[in-house]
């Protein structure tokens, strides 16, 4: 991230070419854990966007004052504070979802994407590009979460956002939901399929 990049590419690159999940392979843990249903996947994505954008901005504003030898501690304090605030807000305004996500909101603190963006981008850039970078990477993460959640809920439970989409006639004809889709291994396989598609489309991402 040393070279000067335009705001536009800072914002849009993480969607596909520089996606934190399928290209940088960061934050896989939460992708496995919260994508059995679409709704928690979306809420988790929004939470990560919020925490990432604000922590990027705060660290970027503070970047010239932070003593180098405690910079990781400062980043952690800021991230942890924001995560607790998000968790409290969810508990107050989206109680059911916060119960479903349980510890995973707290575990945003350990999501490698956050520390990665703070250390690699916010420590060396001005607040506005840092904000775009945070939102961009958050959206990149959310896109993958939503794709995985979409397939897992559709094939595993026959519903989307809790609404039945696979018609009853299918079940009468002998169709059954794939119970394996609900379990974490299938999340890994779906992520692997996305990485496969992604690399077939972008030849420059393939390792020689």
């Amino acid at each position: 991230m040393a070279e000067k990049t335009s705001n536009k590419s800072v914002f849009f690159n993480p969607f596909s070419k520089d996606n934190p999940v399928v290209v940088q392979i960061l934050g896989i843990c939460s992708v496995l854990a919260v994508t059995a249903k679409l709704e928690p996947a979306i809420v988790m994505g929004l939470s990560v966007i919020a925490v990432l954008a604000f922590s990027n901005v705060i660290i970027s504003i503070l970047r010239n004052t932070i003593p180098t030898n405690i910079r990781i501690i400062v980043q952690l304090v800021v991230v942890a504070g924001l995560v607790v605030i998000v968790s409290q807000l969810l508990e107050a305004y989206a109680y059911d979802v916060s119960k479903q996500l349980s510890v995973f909101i707290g575990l945003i603190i350990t999501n490698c994407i956050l520390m990665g963006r703070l250390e690699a981008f916010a420590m060396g850039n001005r607040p506005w590009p840092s904000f775009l970078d945070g939102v961009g990477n958050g959206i990149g993460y959310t896109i993958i979460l939503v794709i995985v959640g979409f397939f897992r809920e559709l094939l595993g439970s026959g519903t989307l956002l809790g609404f039945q989409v696979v018609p009853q006639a299918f079940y009468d004809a002998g169709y059954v939901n794939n119970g394996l889709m609900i379990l974490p291994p299938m999340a890994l396989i779906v992520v692997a399929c996305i990485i496969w598609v992604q690399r077939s489309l972008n030849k420059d991402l393939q390792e020689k």
Partner: protein
Amino acid sequence: MNKQGNTYTIIYIVILVLVVGAALAATSIALRPRQQANADADKMRQILLSARVSTTPDDVIATFHELVDEQFVVNSRGERVEGDAFAVNVAEQSKLPEAERMLPVFVCKTPDGAARKYIVPVYGAGLWGPIWGYVAVDADGSTVYGAYFAHQGETPGLGAEIEKPAFSDQFEGKVLFKNGRFLPVAVVKAGQKPMGDEDYVDGISGGTITSKGVGAMLANCLAPYETFFSNLKD
């Protein structure tokens, strides 16, 4: 000022922690009433589930106030004592000696109004953390009408199965008094029988410690209600 010096570092981190701490405290205070309301509504939902009444988040409070028309606290001698049943902290009470406990009872009508069920809370320990639930008992003080169990962090697919109806529905129709003796329902390995002749349900394969926790929780938390239940029966 030297930004790499110790003094600067210490002052910097102290100020940062104070600011973040103040922000967290403010958020917590501002949101507490809403969080408490959510937690109360969730507790009402669980109490109603044990009496086999399903609710949606929108109607849970209204349904609770309509069906649960009596709440009171008893002691281990079955006498009513002062106290708000809904506010009793079951987690703390379950650790006291039986004679000193405040024992909440929620009386819930069935939706058709024909029968009254006595719902009591239970609280205990699973494998990783606390487990809790509610047991609804018929007006005869012995037959279990329904049960609801929940947990904080039991293993998904194993211990966590206690919150599924497949487990809790087994309690329906079990009796607490057998041949005049008070014997809370036992939880045993599938295919086995308990040592005594008490009623029992099958535990969860692979969730042995959680299943034993449910059994111990029922024994510990239902025992002090013995006099209350036997008074109901008479």
